[in-house]
């Protein structure tokens, strides 16, 4: 396919004639066939263990599924323990909302501060010690303190998740910005880019692959943190259910709640991966 006008340059310019790649869905199909085998293996081991162990220690996945089904919309058992008219679903919604609000707000702050402090030395001198202290002191130690300060309200858990996400993302964003080759910013500057152009057209897209990788790790930790904060004390949430059901030795209910959190976390992680794949399709 030689076009007139490209002259001697055309063999280099066009490369080989364009061919459609074998469709990407082929790889996806393989992915979908392989991935469930791990899940099946996990369930098999679980079932065998459940047969060996007494029901007060472990119950089968089937028993867990039944418990989940019966308690998802309304769980009279939880009402007895003072969680009000509720079911696993409503509690999960509370937990998910806290995770998302904390993650989104905290990460947004963290990413902006991280990128900015990577380029502005004075800001870095202020940010680094703060991140050092907050990042080194285990967050879980701060959880009871937050509970004392703000009481048993949703804000306490959101603050914990948000604060943690912010600190993590400052670290990820700083490192991502340090890894963007300075030649891109120089080139942008030489072509007349304002600081805003440099931020939005160079620094943010250039750091995005690493930042999204960091966000995945932060999201995974946020679930654990939120659930733990709820166990410690919260007005609602799946963590409260786990705590209550564990106290009364309800293994099936407890495992149902844990599975519910795990499943939601996995789905959100997959969504994030899909988003990251699309956003960084250039890489």
């Amino acid at each position, binding site marked *: *396919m030689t*076009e007139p*006008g*490209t*002259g*001697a*340059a*055309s063999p*280099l*310019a*066009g*490369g080989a004639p364009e061919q459609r790649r074998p469709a990407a869905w082929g790889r996806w199909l393989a992915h979908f066939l392989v991935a469930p085998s791990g899940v099946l293996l996990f369930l098999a081991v679980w079932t065998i263990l459940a047969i060996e162990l007494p029901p007060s220690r472990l119950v089968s996945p089937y028993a867990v599924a039944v418990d989940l089904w019966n308690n998802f919309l309304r769980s009279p058992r939880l009402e007895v323990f003072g969680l009000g008219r509720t079911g696993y679903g409503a509690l999960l919604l509370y937990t998910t909302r806290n995770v998302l609000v904390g993650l989104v707000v905290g990460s947004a702050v963290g990413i902006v501060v991280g990128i900015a402090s990577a380029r502005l030395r004075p800001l870095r001198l202020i940010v680094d010690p703060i991140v050092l202290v907050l990042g080194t002191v285990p967050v879980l130690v701060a959880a009871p303190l937050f509970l004392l300060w703000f009481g048993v309200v949703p804000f306490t858990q959101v603050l914990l998740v948000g604060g943690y996400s912010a600190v993590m993302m400052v670290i990820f964003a700083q490192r991502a910005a340090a890894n963007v*080759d300075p*030649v*891109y910013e*120089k*080139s*942008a*500057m*030489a*072509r*007349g*880019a*304002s600081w805003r*152009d440099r931020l939005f*057209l*160079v620094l943010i*897209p*250039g750091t*995005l692959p690493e930042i999204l990788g960091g966000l995945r790790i932060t999201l995974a930790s946020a679930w654990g943190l939120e659930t733990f904060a709820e166990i410690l004390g919260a007005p609602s949430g799946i963590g409260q259910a786990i705590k209550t059901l564990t106290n009364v030795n309800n293994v099936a209910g407890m495992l149902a709640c844990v599975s519910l959190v795990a499943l939601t976390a996995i789905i959100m992680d997959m969504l994030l991966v899909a988003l990251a794949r699309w956003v*960084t*399709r*250039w*890489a």
Partner: protein
Amino acid sequence: MLMVETQSAVSIDRLSVVFERDDGTRVQALRDVSLDIGEGEFVCVLGRSGHGKTTLLNVVAGLIPSYSGDVRVLGKPVKAPGVDRGVIFQKDAVFPWMRVEDNVAFGLRVSGMPKPERLRVAREHLDLVGLRNVPRAWPRELSGGMRARVAVAGVFASDPPILLADEPFGALDYVTRRQLQDVLLSLWERTGKTIMFVTHDVDEALRLATRVIVVSNGSVVEDQAVDLPMPRSDDALATPRGLELRHLLLHHIGLE
């Protein structure tokens, strides 16, 4: 006394640059460089590795603010980068996260040109460098030579009067390099821009330049007009005058 004076595009007066390394040692990268480049000249800056070519170019580009001496571009002192100077960097600086046409249109975008118009200009320039087939490709899908073409298209699309190029074809194979030299020469002839082109390759300098500056240890040691007719075929460079210039330049960069 009446003098008809053409304005100089770049004028450098007693320029010195000292770098301080992180370990505290100091390097004098440029020493008392004075130079005047007229509008429309194609000047090659020739010199061996580490002798200050990039530093000289970066000062003119406005990327090294802490120099001593006087550096002016189109009469104005250089303090920062500006749209009157386009730069092609020694390193590949094509943004991997933008499609080819968006890379070429970047300068136009930040200057506020509306999208349809800047994409039209970008495609025109992709055509000029022989890349009309790949406007929507990602840079990772291109070869090194194709990315070098994208960089060339990008600066010409922004249409700065002065072009600063730092060994833009340094990493390319011989044939590709020759092709891109021809592309650059035809763009230069068509637009009449002032070009400052850094290279360590004597033959490249002789093929392109109307004038060659040799930099050695941070000083200008030779300033030679290349009075060979364009376009310069291999035969034209093998004439007695061509060979004489070649020997002179090789001598100054430390050979023969």
